[in-house]
C-alpha cells in the first residue's frame, strides 16, 4: 500500500484485510464454512465434550464438500488449492471444540493424503472417495505404548504369509480410533533393515483380530475419541499395502509434514478466537473503577499476544505458500508448528490469567481452549521433536 498524507496521519487498524495468499474465492469459502460451523456445530460443543462428537458431522461435511476441498475432483473433491484446506482448519475453530477439529483434521489432512499420494486406483476408490463424501471415517496409527517421539522404535509387526500379511502389535492415542472404518497403519516388516524396514497398510477396522480397547481419557480434546488398539493375527491381502514395502518410514515422515502445518493453522486460529473473546471481556469487566483492559499491564499483555499470534500466522501462511508452490519445506514447517503451538498455549494461558477466577471456571470456555491447545505441543511431534528436526537440518 502506498502512503498518502491521509494514511500517514491515520494508521489503518482494519481487521478485514486478507493475506496475499488468499483470493476472494477463499474468503467466500471462509464465510460459508464459518456460517455452517457456527450454525450446525457450535451449538452442540458443550454436549459433545461429554459424549464425543457424532459421526453425522462427517456425513454432513461430506455433503457440503468440506472434506475434499483440496482433493482431486475425480474422487469427489473440490480440486481447490492447498490454501482451501488451511481455510477449513481455521474456520472449524469456531465450533469451540478442539476435539471435533482434530477428528476432522485426521480425516482430511492426516489419513487421507497418504492414500491419495501413494494409493492404487483401487485403494483411492475404496477409501478416499467415500471418505471425501463423509461415508467412511479414517484414522492413522503411528504411536505405540512404547514408541512415541521415536517412530523408528515401533514394534507392530507385519509378516508375509503367502499372498497375505499377518499383523500383530498395538497402537495408542489413535484419534477416531473407535469410529474409524479403516486405519492407515505403520508397521515394521523387516526388523533388520533400519529405516528401510517399515511398511504402511490400509487395514479395515472390522478385520478379525482388530481390537478396540479402552477409550482414553485426556486433559483436553474431550470431544474426540482417542483409542488404544490391539492387532492380533490380523490378516490382510497384499493389496492392503499402501505405497512401497519398506518405504513406510519415509511415507509417514511425509504425511507428518502436512499434519504439522495444518496443526499450526489450527493453533493460530484458536489463539485468535481466544484473544478476541478475552479482549471483549477485558473491555467489559471493571475492577478498581475501570475496564481491566485499560490497565497498562493488561494492555501490554494484549499487545504481546497479538504480536505473537501475528508472527505465528505469518510463518504459517508463508510456509503454506511454499507448499502450494511445490516445495517440501520440512524445516519451515517444523518451525511453524513449534512456534504456533507454543503461541497458542501461551495465549490461552494469558487469557485465563486476564479472566482471573472466571478463567479457571468451565463456564467461560477459556479453560477448555487451554486444555485443548496444550495437546499441540505434544501431538504430531513434540516441541522437542520439532527442535531435533530443525537442529539436524543445519547439519548438527
Amino acid at each position: 500500500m502506498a502512503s498518502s498524507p491521509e494514511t500517514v496521519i491515520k494508521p489503518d487498524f482494519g481487521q478485514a484485510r486478507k493475506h496475499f495468499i488468499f483470493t476472494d474465492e477463499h474468503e467466500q469459502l471462509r464465510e460459508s464454512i464459518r456460517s455452517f460451523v457456527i450454525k450446525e456445530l457450535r451449538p452442540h460443543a458443550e454436549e459433545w465434550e461429554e459424549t464425543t462428537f457424532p459421526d453425522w458431522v462427517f456425513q454432513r461435511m461430506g455433503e457440503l464438500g468440506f472434506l475434499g476441498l483440496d482433493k482431486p475432483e475425480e474422487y469427489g473433491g473440490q480440486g481447490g488449492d492447498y490454501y482451501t484446506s488451511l481455510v477449513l482448519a481455521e474456520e472449524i475453530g469456531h465450533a469451540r471444540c478442539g476435539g471435533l477439529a482434530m477428528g476432522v483434521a485426521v480425516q482430511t489432512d492426516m489419513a487421507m493424503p497418504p492414500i491419495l499420494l501413494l494409493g492404487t486406483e483401487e485403494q483411492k476408490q475404496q477409501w478416499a472417495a467415500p471418505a471425501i463424501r463423509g461415508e467412511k471415517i479414517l484414522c492413522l496409527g503411528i504411536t505405540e505404548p512404547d514408541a512415541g517421539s521415536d517412530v523408528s522404535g515401533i514394534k507392530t509387526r507385519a509378516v508375509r504369509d503367502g499372498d497375505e500379511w499377518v499383523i500383530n502389535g498395538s497402537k495408542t492415542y489413535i484419534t477416531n480410533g473407535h469410529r474409524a472404518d479403516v486405519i492407515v497403519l505403520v508397521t515394521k516388516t523387516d526388523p533388520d533393515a533400519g529405516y528401510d524396514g517399515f511398511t504402511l497398510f490400509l487395514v479395515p477396522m472390522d478385520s478379525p483380530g482388530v481390537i478396540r480397547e479402552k477409550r482414553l481419557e485426556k486433559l483436553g480434546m474431550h470431544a474426540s475419541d482417542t483409542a488404544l488398539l490391539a492387532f492380533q493375527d490380523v490378516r490382510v491381502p497384499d493389496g492392503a499395502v499402501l505405497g512401497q514395502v519398506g518405504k513406510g518410514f519415509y511415507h509417514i515422515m511425509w504425511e507428518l509434514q502436512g499434519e504439522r502445518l495444518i496443526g499450526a493453522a489450527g493453533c493460530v486460529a484458536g489463539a485468535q478466537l481466544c484473544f478476541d473473546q478475552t479482549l471483549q471481556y477485558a473491555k467489559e469487566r471493571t475492577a478498581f473503577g475501570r475496564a481491566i483492559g485499560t490497565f497498562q499491564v493488561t494492555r501490554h499483555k494484549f499487545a504481546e499476544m497479538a504480536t505473537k499470534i501475528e508472527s505465528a500466522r505469518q510463518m504459517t501462511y508463508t510456509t503454506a505458500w511454499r507448499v502450494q508452490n511445490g516445495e517440501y519445506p520440512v524445516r519451515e514447517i517444523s518451525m511453524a508448528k513449534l512456534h504456533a503451538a507454543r503461541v497458542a498455549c501461551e495465549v490461552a494461558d494469558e487469557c485465563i490469567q486476564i479472566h482471573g477466577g472466571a478463567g479457571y471456571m468451565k463456564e467461560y470456555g477459556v479453560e477448555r481452549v487451554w486444555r485443548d491447545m496444550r495437546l499441540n505441543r505434544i501431538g504430531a511431534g513434540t516441541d522437542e521433536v520439532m527442535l531435533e528436526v530443525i537442529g539436524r537440518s543445519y547439519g548438527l
Partner: protein
Amino acid sequence: MATTPPFTEEHEALRESARGFIERELAPHAEQWERDGWFPNDAFAKLAGQGLLGLKYAERYGGQGGDDLHAAVLAEELARVGSGGTAAGLGAHMWIATPPIDRFGTDEQKERYLPPAIRGERIGALAITEPGAGSDVASLTTRAERVDGGFVVNGEKTYITNGVRADFLVTAVRTRPEGGHHGISFLIVDRSDAVVSAPLAKLGWHASDTATVAYQDAFVPEENLLGDLDEGFKLIMANFQWERLVMALGAVGAMRLAWERTAAFARERRTFGRPLAGHQVIRHRLVDLATSVHTCRCVTYDALRRYAAGEEPVAEVTMAKLVTQRASFELMDACLQVHGGAGYMREYWVERAARDARLGPIGGGTDEIMREILGGVLGL
C-alpha cells in the same frame, strides 16, 4: 538428616508422621475423589484423629498448642495427597476459615466454633469474593442490614472453597453503604435454608466443592459479628499473609513430589535407545526444575521464618506467593511435556497436577495483585 531452618527436629518428626498418614490414608483415594468431584467429610475427621486439624490452636479448644511452624509442616505435606482440591478443602477449613475466629473472635465465639471445627465435626469456609468483586475486594456488595438482635444478609459470593459442605461461613459483608475499605465487617454465618450453595465446574481442583453461595435474607445474630464493626478489612489483610504463605508451602510440597515422580519416569522411560534422562536436553531441564524447587523452598522458608518470628514480612510473603505459584505451574507444565503423550492422559497424575497448579497464579490474590502490593511496599 540435617534440618532446614526454621524447622527443628521436632518439626521434622511431625513431617514424617504427617506424610506417612497422608500417603496411607488420603493419597490412595485421590483419584476417586477427583472423579467424584468431592472428597468425603470423613477426611476432616481422619485428620482430627491424628491431632492434625488443630495444630496451632490452644489445647483448651482441643488443639495441639503448637505454633505456625507446626501448621506450616502440614501445609507443605498436604500436597502429597496428590489432589489439589482435597488439599484446598482441608486447607480452607484449617488455614483460612478458622484462623480469623481464633485471632479476632471473642472467647465465647472461640468456645462455640473452634472445638467442633478442630474435631472435624463442623466445617468452615471463608467467603469474600463476589461475582463483581474479585481482586478488587473493596468493591464487594453483599449487604448486612441491622435488625433487632442482629443482621440480615443479602448478596452472593463466588469461588468459595468448601462452599457446599460448610457448616459455617466466615463472610465479608458491607455494613456501611459508602464504598471503600471501611464499612466492611465479618459475620460468622451458620448454614440455614437462607444460605444456598451451588458447585462450580473448574479447570482443576475437581475434588473441591468450590461454590457460589447466595444469602437470601439470612439472619445472623449479633453475637456472630467477628471483630469490630466496619473494620473487617483489617481482618482480611491479617489473614492474607498466612493464606499466601500456606499457598507457597503447598506449591513447594507439590513441586518436590512432581519432580521426584518425573525424574523417576525419565530414568525408566526409554526412547532412541536410552533413558529419557540420558538425553541432554531432558537432563538439563530436570536440573533446572530441581533448581526451581530449591529456589522456591528457600524463598518460602525465609518468609515463613520471618512470619513465625513475629515480623510483618509483607514483601517477603508476597514475593514467595508470586514466585512459587508461577514456578509451580511451570514445573508441572514441564513435567507434563517430559511425559509426552502420556502426560496428556488422565491415567497419569501429571495432567491433574498441571490443572491444579494453574489456580496458584489466580487464587489468594492474582499475580497482578501481588505485583501491585509489592509496588506499594517498594515505594513505587
